C-alpha cells in the first residue's frame, strides 16, 4: 500500500468539475456548435416488425435545405453468416443493424434513414418525404409471446433445440449436482417471478456534434460512457480508420450503462462526410424511450432447498431475459450474481436470451443482477419465514466468505459480505419499531465489478502543480477521487491537482465507464504514474544534492534526505523541482497503460421500510438503509451518492417504472410523465452504512461501488411489502392498480 497517511483519501473534497456544473458552464453533448453546423434527424420505423422492401429518398434529397441522406446502404455491413465480430461485449453484426435497420425493422423506433438539413424543421420535413415500402409482419414483445409455438421469429436463421426460435442463447453456471442437493433438503421453496423492462432514465438525451474534413479527419463531440468505444464503433460502422477519428468526451448527463453503445454517432459521421458540414443530432425524450436501451423484462423461476437449521443445500435458477431486437440480454449478470452471496454446495443457474420486437437492451447498472436477485432474495425471505428464522440470520448462516467457490467460477478472496450483514443487523434501523400497515424487508446483492484497460498521464506543470489526464468519462464524481489519491501520494493540496478526461487522440486506450471500474482502474494507473514521478523527483533531488537517490525520500510534497546521515539539505518542493526541471533533465511526467486486474466483486445488504395505503394500493418507502462493502471510500460523499442513486432507481423499478405497450406494439408511455421515475417527494432520506474491507489487490483498497446498490433493492421492497401485508408480489412493478387488485382478491391459500 502506497498510502501511509490519510490527508486526502477519505476527505469530502470539492470535485474538480464542480464549479462548472453549478454555474451552467459545463459543456454537455448538446451544448456545443461549430461554424456551419446543420441538423440531423432520424426516420424511424412505425412498425414493431416489418420487412423493408425498398427505400426511396429522392424526394427528401430534392427538398431545399437538405444536405445529405443516409440509409443502411451507407453503413458498413457485418454479414450474419460470417460470424461474430466482437467489440467488448457487443457483436458488430447486431450493432450495424441496430443503428440502421437493414432488411427488417425490428421495433417501433428502429432507424431506417437519416437526414441532415440546414434547420431541424427541414430535416424533420425531409424525413416525411422518404418513402419506405414495408411488408408488415406479425410481432411479439412479451417473453411468453416470443416463446410460444408459432411465434413470429425475428431472426429466421436462429435455431434453438433444432427449431427456429427467439431463444438466441443459453448460459449456465453450475456447481455440484442439484438433484443430489435437493434430496438432502428438508424444505424446498420454488417460485416464479416477472419484471418489466425499465429504462436507465438518464436526464440528458443522446446527442452528438460531428465534423468530417475533406481528408476524412473526423471530430466527434458526444457524451458517452466511453470515447474509445465511440471511436471504435464509429470507425467500424463507417470505415474511417480510428487514427482519423478524434472522439472528445463531453460532460455526460447520466448513463447508468445506457451510453455504452452508439446510436447517433455513426449516422452523424456519415451525414457530415456526405454534406461536408458539421452535423448535430439530439434525440428527443420520446426517441430515447422508444429506441435506446432499456434493460430486459424477465421471467424467472427460483428453487431453493434447505435443512431445518437453515443450511441451504441446493439452488436452481432459470432466468429468461428479453434482449429486444438483437441478441445480448444481460443473462450473465442474472446467472452469475444471483446466488453469489451464498455458499451453496449444489447450484444450477441458467439464463436464456430471448429476442422480441422491442428496442435492443443496453446495459443498466449491474446488468441482469437485480433481476436475478429479486427472485432469489424473495425466495430466501420465504424460506426464512418458513423456518421461522430472522432473514439476516439465514443469510449469515449461508454467507459466502474468503475461500468460498462461487458457481460462476472464482474462489472469493477476503470479502466483506458478512460484515454488511452484521452491520445491517446492528443498525438502529433494523430494531426500530414499525407502525400500522408498515413493514420491513431486507435483501442482499452482489456484482462482479470490472477492471480492464486504463490509461493515465500525470504531468507536472512548470509552476509545480499537477495535471492528471485519464481516459474514462466521469459520471459520478470520479475526478474527485482521482484528485484525492494523487494529492495524497504527492503530499500536496488537492486543489493543486487538476483532473481532466482526455480525448481519444491525447490519452491511451481506456475501456468504458462501466462495470464499476472507473475509480478502481484509473486510480491504479494514476498511482503507478505518480509513483514514477515521485521516483523522478527523488532522482533529481539526489542529483542536485549529489547523494544517492535511495537516500532521498518524498514526503509532504517535497524531497528530503532520508536521514541526517544522508546529509543536511533544505527540502526541495515540487515547485522547486519543477522550476529546475529544464536544467535537470527536462519535463516531469509519466504515463501508464494497464489492463488492470483484481477488481473483486462487491456485496451489499439493504433494509427497507414501507407503508401501504391499503384502500388505494399505494406503497411508499418510508425509511431505507443501504449497507455495502465499498473496499475503501476514497471520497465518501460520492460513494454514498452511488448507493443513494442506485437505491432510488431500484425503488422506481419496484414500484412504478415499466414500459407499457399499446395494442399496436408501441411503447405507450415514452416520456417522463407516464414513465414514472421517482420524484423528490416520493423518497425518504437514504441512509448509507459504508463497510470498508479493503481490496487486497488494489493500492488503495478500492472496490467498485456503483452497481451493487441497485441489486438488492427490488427484493428489499417486496419483502417489506410482504412484511406489512402478509402478501407477496411475484411481479413488478408493485403499482397501485396491481396492489389494489391483489388486496381485493379472495384470499387463496398458497399451496406448499
Amino acid at each position, binding site marked *: 500500500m502506497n498510502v501511509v497517511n490519510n490527508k486526502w483519501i477519505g476527505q*469530502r473534497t*470539492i*470535485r474538480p*468539475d*464542480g*464549479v462548472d*456544473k*453549478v*454555474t*451552467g*458552464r*459545463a*459543456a*454537455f453533448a*448538446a*451544448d456545443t456548435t461549430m461554424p456551419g453546423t446543420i441538423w440531423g434527424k432520424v426516420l424511424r420505423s412505425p412498425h414493431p416488425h416489418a420487412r423493408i422492401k425498398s427505400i426511396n429518398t429522392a424526394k427528401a434529397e430534392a427538398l431545399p435545405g437538405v444536405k445529405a441522406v443516409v440509409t443502411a446502404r451507407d453503413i458498413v455491413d457485418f454479414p450474419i453468416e460470417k460470424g461474430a465480430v466482437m467489440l467488448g461485449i457487443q457483436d458488430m453484426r447486431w450493432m450495424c443493424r441496430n443503428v440502421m435497420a437493414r432488411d427488417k425493422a425490428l421495433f417501433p423506433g428502429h432507424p431506417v434513414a437519416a437526414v441532415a438539413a440546414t434547420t431541424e424543421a427541414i430535416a424533420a420535413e425531409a424525413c416525411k418525404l422518404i418513402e419506405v415500402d414495408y411488408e408488415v409482419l406479425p410481432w411479439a414483445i412479451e417473453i411468453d409471446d416470443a416463446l410460444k409455438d408459432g411465434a413470429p421469429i425475428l431472426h429466421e436463421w436462429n435455431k434453438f433445440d433444432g427449431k427456429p426460435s427467439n431463444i438466441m442463447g443459453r448460459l449456465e453456471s453450475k456447481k455440484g449436482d442439484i438433484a443430489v442437493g435437493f434430496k438432502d433438503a428438508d424444505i424446498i421453496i420454488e417460485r416464479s417471478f416477472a419484471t418489466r423492462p425499465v429504462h*436507465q*432514465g*438518464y*436526464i*440528458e*438525451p443522446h446527442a452528438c456534434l460531428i465534423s468530417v474534413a475533406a481528408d476524412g479527419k473526423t471530430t466527434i463531440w458526444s457524451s458517452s460512457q466511453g470515447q474509445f468505444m465511440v471511436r471504435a464503433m464509429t470507425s467500424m460502422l463507417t470505415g474511417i480508420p480510428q487514427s482519423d477519428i478524434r472522439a472528445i468526451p463531453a*460532460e*455526460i*448527463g*447520466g*448513463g*447508468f450503462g445506457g451510453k455504452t453503445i452508439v446510436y447517433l454517432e455513426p449516422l452523424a459521421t456519415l451525414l457530415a462526410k456526405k454534406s461536408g458540414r458539421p452535423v448535430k443530432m*439530439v434525440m*428527443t*425524450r420520446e426517441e430515447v424511450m422508444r429506441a435506446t436501451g432499456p434493460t430486459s423484462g424477465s421471467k424467472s423461476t427460483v428453487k431453493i432447498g434447505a435443512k431445518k437449521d437453515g443450511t441451504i443445500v441446493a439452488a436452481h435458477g432459470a432466468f429468461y431475459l428479453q434482449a429486444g431486437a438483437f441478441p445480448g440480454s444481460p443473462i450473465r449478470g442474472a446467472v452469475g450474481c444471483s446466488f453469489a452471496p451464498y455458499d451453496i454446495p449444489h447450484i444450477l443457474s441458467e439464463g436464456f436470451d430471448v429476442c422480441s420486437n422491442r428496442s435492443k437492451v443496453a446495459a443498466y447498472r449491474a446488468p441482469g443482477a437485480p433481476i436475478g436477485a429479486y427472485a432469489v432474495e424473495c425466495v430466501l425471505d420465504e424460506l426464512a419465514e418458513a423456518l421461522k428464522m430472522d432473514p439476516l440470520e439465514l443469510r449469515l448462516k449461508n454467507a459466502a466468505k474468503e475461500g468460498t467457490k462461487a458457481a460462476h467460477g472464482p474462489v472469493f478472496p477476503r470479502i466483506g459480505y458478512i460484515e454488511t450483514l452484521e452491520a445491517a443487523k446492528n443498525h438502529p434501523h433494523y430494531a426500530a419499531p414499525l407502525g400500522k400497515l408498515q413493514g420491513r424487508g431486507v435483501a442482499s446483492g452482489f456484482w462482479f465489478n470490472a477492471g480492464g484497460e486504463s490509461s493515465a498521464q500525470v504531468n507536472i506543470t512548470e509552476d509545480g502543480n499537477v495535471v492528471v489526464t485519464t481516459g474514462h468519462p466521469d*459520471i*459520478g*464524481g470520479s475526478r*474527485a477521487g482521482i484528485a484525492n489519491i494523487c494529492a495524497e501520494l504527492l503530499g500536496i493540496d488537492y486543489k493543486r491537482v487538476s483532473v481532466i478526461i482526455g480525448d481519444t487522440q491525447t490519452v491511451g486506450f481506456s475501456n468504458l465507464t462501466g462495470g464499476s471500474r472507473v475509480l478502481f482502474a484509473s486510480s491504479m494507473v494514476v498511482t503507478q504514474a505518480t509513483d514514477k514521478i515521485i521516483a523522478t523527483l527523488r532522482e533529481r533531488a539526489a542529483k542536485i544534492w549529489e547523494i544517492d537517490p535511495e537516500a532521498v525520500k518524498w514526503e509532504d510534497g517535497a524531497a528530503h534526505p532520508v536521514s541526517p546521515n544522508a546529509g543536511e539539505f533544505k527540502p526541495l518542493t515540487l515547485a522547486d523541482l519543477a522550476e529546475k526541471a529544464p536544467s535537470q533533465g527536462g519535463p516531469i511526467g509519466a504515463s501508464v497503460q494497464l489492463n488492470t486486474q483484481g477488481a473483486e466483486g462487491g456485496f451489499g445488504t439493504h433494509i427497507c421500510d414501507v407503508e401501504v395505503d391499503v384502500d388505494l394500493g399505494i406503497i411508499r418507502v418510508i425509511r431505507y438503509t443501504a449497507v455495502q462493502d465499498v473496499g475503501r471510500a476514497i*471520497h465518501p*460523499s*460520492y460513494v*454514498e*451518492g452511488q448507493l*443513494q*442513486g*442506485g*437505491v*432510488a*432507481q431500484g425503488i422506481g423499478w419496484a414500484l412504478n417504472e415499466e414500459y407499457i405497450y399499446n395494442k399496436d406494439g408501441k411503447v405507450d408511455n415514452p*416520456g*417522463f*410523465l407516464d414513465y414514472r*421515475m*421517482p*420524484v*423528490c*417527494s416520493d*423518497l425518504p*432520506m*437514504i441512509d448509507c452504512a459504508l463497510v470498508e474491507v479493503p481490496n487486497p489487490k488494489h493500492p488503495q483498497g478500492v472496490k467498485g461501488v456503483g452497481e451493487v446498490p441497485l441489486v438488492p433493492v427490488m427484493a428489499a421492497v417486496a419483502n417489506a411489502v410482504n412484511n406489512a401485508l402478509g402478501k407477496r408480489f411475484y411481479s413488478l412493478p408493485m403499482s397501485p392498480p396491481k396492489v389494489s387488485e391483489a388486496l381485493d382478491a379472495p384470499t387463496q391459500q398458497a399451496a406448499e
Partner: protein
Amino acid sequence: MGKLHVTTTVNGEPMEFLCEPYETMLDALRGQLGLTGSKEGCSSGDCGACSITLDDRLVCSCLMLAAEAEGHQIRTIEGLATGEKLHPLQQKFLEHAALQCGICTSGMLVASDALLKKNPDPTEEEVRFWLAGNLCRCTGYDKIVRAVMETAAEMREAAR
C-alpha cells in the same frame, strides 16, 4: 409569418433577439443567446432541467414561448452567482456533493433559489414537494435536499 423581434432582460442585462413565433424560450436561450446552462431533458415540462424564472416566477423554459419574454425579466443559472462569488446554494451543492452527472443541477439550483426566496425556512417535506418537478436520476435526492435545507439555515443565520 416572419420572425419576431424580442427585447428583454436576461440576468439583469438588456438583450434583444429574433425568434420564430413557435420557438421556445429554451431554444432562444440555448441558441441565439448562447446560454446553454439551461438543459433540455424532455421538452414537456416533466424534468425541470430547463428551469428559469420569469419575473421571479419559476417556469420551465421549454413551456414558454420565446416571444413571451418581451418586456420581462428572465433569470437563468448563469445569473445565480455574483461575478466570481458563488451563490450560497451553489457552494452548498458542491460541499454536499449534491450533484453527480450535473445535468439536472442548473434546474435544481434555479428551483431551489426560487423556493428560498418565497420560503426561507422550508421543511424537508416542503423542499421535496417544491423540487418534485426537477428530476434527478443520479443522487436519489438525499444530498440535494440536505444542501437546500442547510443553505436555508445558513442564509437565515446570515440575515439575522
